[in-house]
């Protein structure tokens, strides 16, 4: 089964330890983001990711309906 896509794929989740690390981050070196080669590629990946999320939600709903139909 394919791994689930997350909507926040451009950045890492903030955490307590990243907050601690920021105390010493005086030159703004801590934050990094997932980048693409071109702006077009970045747009394409973002749009694809959004539709994958919609697809995942739809598949979840279908799976739930299938379970309900089976149990009925």
């Amino acid at each position, binding site marked *: 089964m394919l791994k689930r896509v997350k909507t926040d794929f451009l950045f890492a989740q903030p*955490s307590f330890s990243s907050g601690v690390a920021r105390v*010493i981050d005086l030159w703004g070196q801590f934050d990094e983001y997932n980048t693409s080669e071109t702006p077009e590629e970045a747009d394409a990946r973002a749009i694809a990711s959004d539709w994958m999320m919609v697809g995942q939600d*739809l598949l979840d709903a279908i799976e*739930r309906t299938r379970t309900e139909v089976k149990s009925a």
Partner: protein
Amino acid sequence: MSENSQENTRSSNAAISAVTQSISFSGPLPPPGLLKQYNDVIPNGAERIMAMAERQSAHREALEDKVVTGNLASQARGSHYAFLICLVSIVGGFVLIGMGKSIVGVSAVIGSLATLTSVFLLAKREQRRDRMEKSATVDKRIDS
């Protein structure tokens, strides 16, 4: 030709004429035919599934909002606490140096800075791993 061999020929012809149908669909959304089939099984099935998917999306977005907001608050707390602890430790270290306890004072100052540097490097590595994993998942799904 005997009756038995005729029977065998008929059954092999029947086997040859069997049609195998396989449908494949790729894309981020499930095929529309799948939804249509649910209309045949349950009344108004496709519309009910779409409504459920919309609720699921809203629920997921609300959860993501809570997680990101919570993590941002946790991150801010981490900064505040670490700043206070280091401030106390570094100021205390200088006070100790001023009182003539140089070794303990210098240790306190260097220890605080070393701890912060270690946390910085570890957290950065953890964040990079998280980002790369998410990016690889999206790319894998796009390629599949």
